């Protein structure tokens, strides 16, 4: 069921290339500021950086509409930023402030922002997928052309929920795209030590579903694969499994010592940093100018700084919030 890579696959035009790049920079600047703020002791949170994985959600999201939905995971702030979650409430959420997307109650692993289409962020490996199916089912029942993207990791491809979800999605021809961000590690476990097959995308064959492995650090490849899968889903053609090969530069969680990683493997992966690579490509092809990118960088840095200030200047939620949102009706404690 491996997809053939046609010679003339969808190509992002210049504006779309810049759009992808802009999303990547927002992700990267945001990541950088988050780590800085944690180090300053001004954020108290477990942080799962996606540095190195910027291309994937950026190239996916330029193909999505605002009312398309995603379900993502603890390592998902890049997915949210790419999908368009505004940075102020996002920062306020990771800072546990009442101005956060979730009033500070969910925190970084559970950011939700339906306005932007971010419907679920889960801390449970594999659990983005079964829920994405339901969102896709709703879109189908509505007779809409909405699609849903389920993001998950390589490690998640070994858990039961993956299997049940892909089987159901295929049977029901749901407009859902399963995007596996294969960053070669699950916590401290190397991909091949957990996964009995060399390519996650091969598993699509178990569900009579199109499946494809792409270089998740290549914006063009990623764009083409995402675009085709999303169009197919919109057109009623059902789900696709995309395996995007990438790498997480900063280990599993902030503070990770990387001892479990092969030094050479890591160095090789880091040398393939997608941001400078895409930057060079944009400049080379004339899609962007040095000045244009410098301006973009500056604007985004300022936007991130503003979000951070907004968050840290906001109030914490009141303790009454413990009895709100447990049910629709406030409960007595």
């Amino acid at each position, binding site marked *: 069921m491996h997809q053939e890579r046609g010679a003339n696959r969808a190509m992002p035009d210049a504006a779309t290339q810049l759009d992808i790049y802009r999303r990547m920079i927002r992700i990267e600047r945001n990541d950088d500021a988050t780590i800085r703020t944690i180090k300053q002791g001004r954020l108290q949170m477990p942080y799962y950086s996606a540095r190195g994985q910027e291309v994937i959600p950026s190239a996916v999201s330029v193909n999505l509409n605002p009312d398309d*939905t995603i*379900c993502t995971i603890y390592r998902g702030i890049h997915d949210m930023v790419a999908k368009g979650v505004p940075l102020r409430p996002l920062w306020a959420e990771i800072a546990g402030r009442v101005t*956060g*997307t*979730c*009033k*500070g*109650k*969910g925190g970084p692993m*559970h950011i*939700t*922002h*339906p306005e932007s289409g971010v*419907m*679920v962020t*889960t*801390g*449970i490996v594999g*659990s983005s*997928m*079964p*829920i*994405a*199916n*339901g*969102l*896709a*089912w*709703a*879109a*189908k*029942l*509505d007779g809409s052309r909405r699609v*849903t993207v389920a993001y998950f990791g390589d490690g998640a491809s070994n858990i*039961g*929920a993956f299997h*049940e*979800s892909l*089987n*159901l999605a295929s*049977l*029901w021809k749901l407009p859902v795209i399963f995007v596996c961000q294969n960053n070669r590690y699950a916590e401290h476990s190397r991909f091949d030590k957990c996964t009995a097959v060399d390519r996650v995308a091969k598993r699509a064959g178990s569900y009579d579903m199109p499946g494809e492995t792409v270089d998740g650090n290549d914006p063009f490849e990623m764009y083409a694969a995402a675009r085709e899968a999303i169009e197919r889903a919109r057109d009623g053609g059902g789900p696709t499994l995309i395996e995007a090969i990438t790498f997480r530069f900063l280990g599993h969680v902030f503070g990770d010592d990387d001892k479990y990683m092969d030094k050479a493997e890591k160095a090789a992966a880091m040398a393939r940093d997608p941001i400078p690579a895409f930057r060079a490509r944009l400049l080379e092809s004339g899609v962007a100018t040095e000045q244009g990118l410098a301006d973009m960088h500056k604007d985004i840095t300022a936007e991130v700084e503003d979000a951070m200030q907004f968050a840290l200047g906001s109030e914490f939620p009141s303790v009454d*919030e413990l009895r*709100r*949102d*447990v*049910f*629709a009706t406030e*409960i007595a404690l």
Partner: protein
Amino acid sequence: MSAPTTKMNALQAVNAAIAEAMAADPKVILLGEDVADPEGGGVVGTTRGLSTRFGDDRVKSTPISEQAIIGAAIGAALGGYRPIAEIMLMNFTTIAMDMIVNHAAKLRFMSGGQSQVPITIHMLTGAGASTAGQHADHLEAWFAHTAGLKVVAPSCPADYKGLMLSCIADPDPCIFIESMRTLFVPEDVPDDQGPIELGRANIIQEGNDVTIVAYSGMVITAREAVKKLAEEGISAELIDLRTVAPWDRDCVLASVRKTGRAVLVHEAVRSFGVGAEIAATIHEALFGLLKGPVRRLGAPYSPVPFSKPLENAFLVQPDAVVAAVLSVMG
């Protein structure tokens, strides 16, 4: 002249409730193993006729994939629907506990109120049918202990209908328990039976000497005990809890305040069961006002056994309820 009624059993009552809700609200949808008509409309026929009437899109049979079933229900709920998910038997919720507990129950809270998950998960359970260790557990205490879930356990057809209507309409996830022993007993159900408010117990019989609290299949057992007690001149008040979480504290406490004595009965294992919460609450709230200790009855600390004599001993019998009442009558 009383309102017109129709005789139906609990399964028919659930079917009627779902049909009514689906007819009234196009957002009500249904999924589960074998629930559509080509698959027989449910293995015991609970959902028979619904896919034929409301279409294959809204009533979908699924593979055997409990995680995928509850996940799809949650997602559809986030997408604006009111899914009813059938899990064939309560023991199979063990496959879907992540979806139910980590997700359905928590998404509203974790999203700061942005998400709502108005799903109803209904399931059969109960000992007595020789299904043994893995098909008859009463696990409602787990769900009651989970913030964000409502747990409903009716005992008679009218309540099955009224409570199912309320679960479907409720903005939060509800666990709806169908007890094997109550399924096939036909009773009169008012033709206009509407929703019954969740969280409200039902005083089945008023009495003065002791309060008996039961729910689900054990209401049948408790009814028999009440009859036997009446023969011995003891006036028992019988409360059918109907909703296990949130349970009707006010109703139970008012009754025990009046009678001074309480006996709690459930089918689930006694230890760490629902009865513990109720007993602890009664004792704390009515300290010094009770005429005797609250007695809790439930299954022994054992898996459900197969062999008939063991299965009978596993289930609380009416005589055990009578004995418990007598033990506190002093």
